[in-house]
């Protein structure tokens, strides 16, 4: 694998990790635009805009976009988070040019009124769909309460009201403030030649306007809150907890990743042996989320409502034990082995490499090879875990739930 990058005359940054031994190539635009960049009046616009990108530009209609992507056999889609909107396509190497042409069209959509009106229905259906998934509702709720007053607390999908009231003009204005070369990166992973790639990108992606956008990164400390959404019809109680963890730029993030595996991986972790293996819960895990300027521990459990308080106490005991005594050398070695194997398996496919390639650049202007990641994971010591726990103990400030309980 070989990494190369350049800035094109239009100001667009192109990064690529080429690998002649794989069969496909994946390309994706990573745009620094997500729900945290919205104001309350346009809540949900980043995600709605992601849908509208597929409605075509001045040359391609909505039908054209989907038809041509299917003609070249692309695996393509897009996703929106609090911080990033990502558009990607994985294709056979001979179709890279068409894929780049279409991806470029997605960056400059026409945002036609009639398409906007029709797609609004689809977005409202998507919001309803997620209402029927309690774990998702719980996630939305804990983000809103943990990051209350901070942009990261804003919902990705928006609400029925904000979407209904959103206008195409507001979306156009948001689009022109975010979709320019200073605010996005084009990442490519897989079987291609960099010089040819650069020519193709110059040919097809030079229309993206230049510009710079600053993102507000306010300082923040969460308040202790417990907030349960009462849902009589739910059978299970869903509970999440969050607490402060290293931010996206903090070198401690690698230790945090390993600690979350020791404590909260879906099998063989402390939470697994305490709660899942004995059958106390349906599932229970701990994850680590890194953001621009912030970070969070996030735990999740679902269980019978009558066992919810006891199970939360069990989690608290696991966290307290880890905070007091750290983790064992054996546990750390197991976690290293697990994570190393995941890195290798994920890295075998261009699509698996694309997301880490794009995110590392967008967040830190940094390239990390598989070997770099393996090396740092292997190098994390118990001392570093202790240092991490001193700065960011597993102390949950925020508890949120969805289910039959109204109090804990």
């Amino acid at each position: 694998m070989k990494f190369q990058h350049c800035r094109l005359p239009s100001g667009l940054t192109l990064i690529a990790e080429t690998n002649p031994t794989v069969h496909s190539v994946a390309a994706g635009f990573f745009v620094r635009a997500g729900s945290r960049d919205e104001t309350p009046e346009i809540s949900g616009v980043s995600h709605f805009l992601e849908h509208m990108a597929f409605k075509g530009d001045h040359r391609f209609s909505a039908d054209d976009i989907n038809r041509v992507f299917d003609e070249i056999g692309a695996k393509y889609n897009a996703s929106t988070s609090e911080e990033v909107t990502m558009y990607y396509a994985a294709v056979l190497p001979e179709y890279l040019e068409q894929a780049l042409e279409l991806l470029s069209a997605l960056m400059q959509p026409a945002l036609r009124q009639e398409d906007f009106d029709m797609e609004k229905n689809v977005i409202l259906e998507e919001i309803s769909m997620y209402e029927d998934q309690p774990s998702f509702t719980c996630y939305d709720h804990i983000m809103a309460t943990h990051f209350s007053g901070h942009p990261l607390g804003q919902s990705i999908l928006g609400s029925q009201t904000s979407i209904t009231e959103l206008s195409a003009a507001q979306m156009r204005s948001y689009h022109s403030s975010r979709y320019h070369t200073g605010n996005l990166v084009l990442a490519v992973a897989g079987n291609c030649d960099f010089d040819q790639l650069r020519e193709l990108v110059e040919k097809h992606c030079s229309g993206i306007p230049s510009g710079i956008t600053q993102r507000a990164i306010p300082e923040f400390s969460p308040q202790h809150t417990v907030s349960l959404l009462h849902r009589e019809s739910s059978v299970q109680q869903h509970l999440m907890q969050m607490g402060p963890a290293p931010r996206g730029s903090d070198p401690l993030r690698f230790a945090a990743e390993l600690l979350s595996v020791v404590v909260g991986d879906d099998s063989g972790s402390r939470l697994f042996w305490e709660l899942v293996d004995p059958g106390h819960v349906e599932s229970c895990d701990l994850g680590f989320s890194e953001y621009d300027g912030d970070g969070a521990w996030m735990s999740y459990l679902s269980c019978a409502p009558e066992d919810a308080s006891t199970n939360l106490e069990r989690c608290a005991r696991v966290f307290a034990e880890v905070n007091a005594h750290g983790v064992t050398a054996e546990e750390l070695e197991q976690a290293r082995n697990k994570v190393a194997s995941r890195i290798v398996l994920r890295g075998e496919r261009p699509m698996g490499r694309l997301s880490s390639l794009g995110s590392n650049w967008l967040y830190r202007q940094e390239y990390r090879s598989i070997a770099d990641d393996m090396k740092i994971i292997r190098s994390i010591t118990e001392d570093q875990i202790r240092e991490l726990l001193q700065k960011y103990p597993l102390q949950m400030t925020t508890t949120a739930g969805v289910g039959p309980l109204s109090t804990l």
Partner: protein
Amino acid sequence: MECPQFIESYRLSNGLLVVFEPMPDVESAALSLLLPAGGVRDPAGRCGTAAILSEMFPRGADGLSSRSLCAALDNLGLQRSFQTGSAHITFSAATTADRLTDALPLIARMVLQPHLHDSDFEPARDLVAQGLLALEDEPRQQLGRLLRQYSYAAPWGNPSEGELADLELITPDDIRRHHQQYVVPQNAIVGIAGNLDPTQLQSTLESVFGSWQGSAPADMPAGTRPTSPFHQLHESAQTHLGLAWETVRYSDPRYYEAWAAVSLLSGGMSSRLFTEVREKRGLCYAISASLSTLRDDARVMAYAGTTTERAQETLDVTVQEILRLSEGITEEELQRCRARAKSSLIMQQESTSSRAGSLARDMYLLERFVSLQEIHDRIDALTFEGVRQFVIDHAPKSMVLVSIGPQAPDPGCLPQFQ
């Protein structure tokens, strides 16, 4: 397209069927082990026996405690899972190639000699029960389970994840009996793909699985299935709609035409259902149709989720699109299906897990392996006229309709009521 593959299949001395594809360009290796002990083998009234057994495999084996076994497998970086299906309990695993070889003896001990202690039974049963309760909060997943139940004759339509009411009746002895009777080398299949040496692999497999004994039980006779339409009341935001109709099974000479027909309906974002129901009318976010194939039976299963006031229109339009599929098929439309399929085939060569799974599944459904080149050639050989004729010959004369939501839709649009 060039898909050079050197797949081989053979039987070990005890009859266990192995299928292996060397993949020298990757670092990993993956395994898919099909054990003929799936939900169809659950005793009557004890639906969930196989599901509990799946939960009990990792809880210690051959003198290794649950924790020691888990630590040993984690140290080999082995990503792994047990899944309970109707025909099989499937154990899937992947890691770097050298470590998979080291993991094989542990995997064999776990599968052949699990402890199945009384003390581990209750926690495993509780986990299965919790999973079923969680399913009740997820109407879309619940719908999949119901659609299967109303589409296939028992026991093939039985929910392999278990029935809440039955779990209380299952005993540790049932689990041990299930293991003894059905976790046998006859009819079990090992699929492996990855960067491994074929000779060394065969000798490792022989040494770890060769002593496994047991004979295959008789095939399961098919019973009856409940009649639909069926609606389950639920206070959900959306009404979830499921449709199913008969098609040809995987071993049928016309299978690839059946595949193309479903691909026209739901094979990409330019396909009929996505375009007509979502893009043109904005009726839903999620809509899809796919082939479901057992060894001896097959269905097309379709799903749409939509808010209740639009559920009727969504159902009517979806059924109408399915019934008018034969109208106006174009060569371009078919060409898009071919392109998507070929691209997926080539990308499969980048994933050892996906190859191991496909190899094992093909050995079960067809009793032979299928190379990517063969699939490629069959897809190339599809003709516009052949696909159109298939759609006409197999136009659904009746459909199963299952729904979950605040209100039952009117099934008047279904072909059997026309």
